[in-house]
């Protein structure tokens, strides 16, 4: 594996809201050997790929609104558009900053439906996505219509929490495609959590979702999206509770069956059978 590929894989594996720290560590590691490694075309592509697949959001310079980047709302180069704020903007994939906002109306045959989804989505996001406070955190949503696939409307929601002082970060992503022909809603919902105080613990979960016979109004589409999100979040919570009571408990007991701690001075007298000790 070439150095550029190694560095790319580190970028792609960055936990939510921690890109700055990962880049700093990569710089410290590679400055002797190849200080220009972060400028390598492969590595630059990895930054873009990471930000787009993670639906990374940023506060638009000069405004209070957050915008997100994805493969669906990209114009050309580092330019993206946002139908919520009717702006285009430039995104720096290394620093994750959105700048140069300009008034922009996306030209699509689905403009009416897009603005109808938009309205319902605004209410849904306000109802379920709490405001995030720190600099590297935030939530954003957008509805996009890639010009190469005119029958598809991308509905994207992303929320990032980053609390370095508490060594915690997290990200929620909803990436759904509505097909105007088949009236289906398909895509993924994903949640990640990273906890790194005297350790490194990561929750990573993704679910493929698909729903047929979705209505063709904005409110109907967002109603199904809300249902899918709710189901998924409840299943994640259920899985965590189930693991706590199941797999986790099965690994190591809290106390021996006797409910007493070991008397180490008498341990030779515990008289377990060889079978129980695991002796063959």
């Amino acid at each position: 594996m070439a150095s550029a590929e190694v560095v790319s894989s580190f970028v792609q594996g960055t936990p939510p809201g921690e890109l700055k720290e990962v880049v700093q560590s990569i710089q410290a590691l590679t400055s002797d050997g190849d200080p220009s490694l972060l400028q390598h075309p492969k590595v630059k592509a990895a930054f873009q790929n990471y930000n787009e697949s993670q639906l990374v959001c940023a506060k638009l310079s000069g405004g209070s609104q957050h915008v997100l980047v994805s493969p669906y709302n990209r114009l050309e180069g580092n330019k993206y558009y946002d139908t919520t704020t009717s702006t285009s903007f430039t995104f720096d994939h290394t620093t994750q900053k959105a700048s140069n906002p300009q008034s922009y109306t996306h030209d699509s045959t689905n403009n009416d439906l897009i603005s109808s989804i938009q309205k319902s989505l605004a209410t849904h996001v306000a109802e379920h996505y709490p405001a995030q406070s720190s600099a590297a955190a935030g939530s954003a949503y957008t509805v996009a219509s890639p010009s190469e696939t005119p029958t598809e409307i991308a509905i994207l929601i992303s929320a990032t929490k980053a609390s370095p002082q508490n060594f915690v970060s997290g990200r929620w992503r909803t990436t759904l495609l509505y097909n105007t022909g088949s009236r289906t809603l398909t895509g993924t919902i994903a949640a990640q959590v990273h906890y790194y105080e005297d350790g490194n613990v990561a929750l990573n979960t993704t679910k493929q979702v698909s729903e047929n016979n979705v209505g063709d109004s904005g409110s109907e589409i967002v109603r199904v999206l809300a249902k899918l999100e709710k189901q998924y979040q409840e299943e994640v919570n259920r899985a965590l509770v189930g693991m706590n009571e199941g797999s986790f408990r099965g690994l190591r007991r809290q106390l021996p069956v006797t409910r007493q701690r070991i008397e180490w001075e008498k341990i030779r007298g515990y008289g377990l059978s060889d079978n129980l000790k695991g002796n063959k």
Partner: protein
Amino acid sequence: MSADTQLDAALDLLRRLSPLEIKQNLAKITQLVPDIQEDLLSAVDQPLEVARCKKTGRDYLLCDYNRDGDSFRSPWSNEFDPPIDDAAYPSDRVRRMEVEANEAFTVYRSLYYEGGIGSVYLWDQDDGFAGVVLLKKESGRGEDTAGWDSIHVVEVDERGKTSKSAHYKLTSTVILHLGKDNDAVGNLTLAGSLTRQVESDLAIESIGSLGRDGGHVANIGRLVEDMEGKMRNQLQEVYFGKAKDVVGDLRSVASLGQVEQDRRTQREVFQSMSGK
């Protein structure tokens, strides 16, 4: 850039990148900076690998502490596999404690883990001795997978003012991974490790045929039992409590309007009850 700065950067990366890919990421980092390989390998805990003792047929665990070149020492036979000529063994005294500790922790493992594999390795040091207690258990049932690796490194300083007590320093890491894959939740992994440290001066009793050395084994046993109990609680809190809380911070299952409404009602009830 100094080697220390590079080592710090490597450790920072490893504490951020996926805990399920420690081994691969270690290899990638040492590819970028070969000079820090040895330091990095001794500073980073990885899931333990298992080997079978050729002489006794019992399984044992592999780590940096029972490795010499490409050979590993079995705690059951005290022999290296593959055999090597000039291997370093523990002194007779430390080996006797090692045998005792392996017996004791086999009991411990059967009581707390009800299965799994364990190994204890001890070695001599100028001011006393040191050791590592390793415990491993894995399970996989259908859509669920789970694994636990405990790595307890203990240093015993016997230079104290009196011979009645010694200073113990314990550094413990537990690597825990849990996974679920089904239609309801999709693919879910919850993995990682926590590291904790404790130091204490403990009196040494005389226990069994090893006398005061038997007391050392008991002291190490109590320290490890206490630490694992605490870490199990912390893991439970971080893995299940914290993970769920953070997901809830990102997205609220209940409507935020409703949550606010409930809060307001609660406040009003409280205020009317306190007569304000």
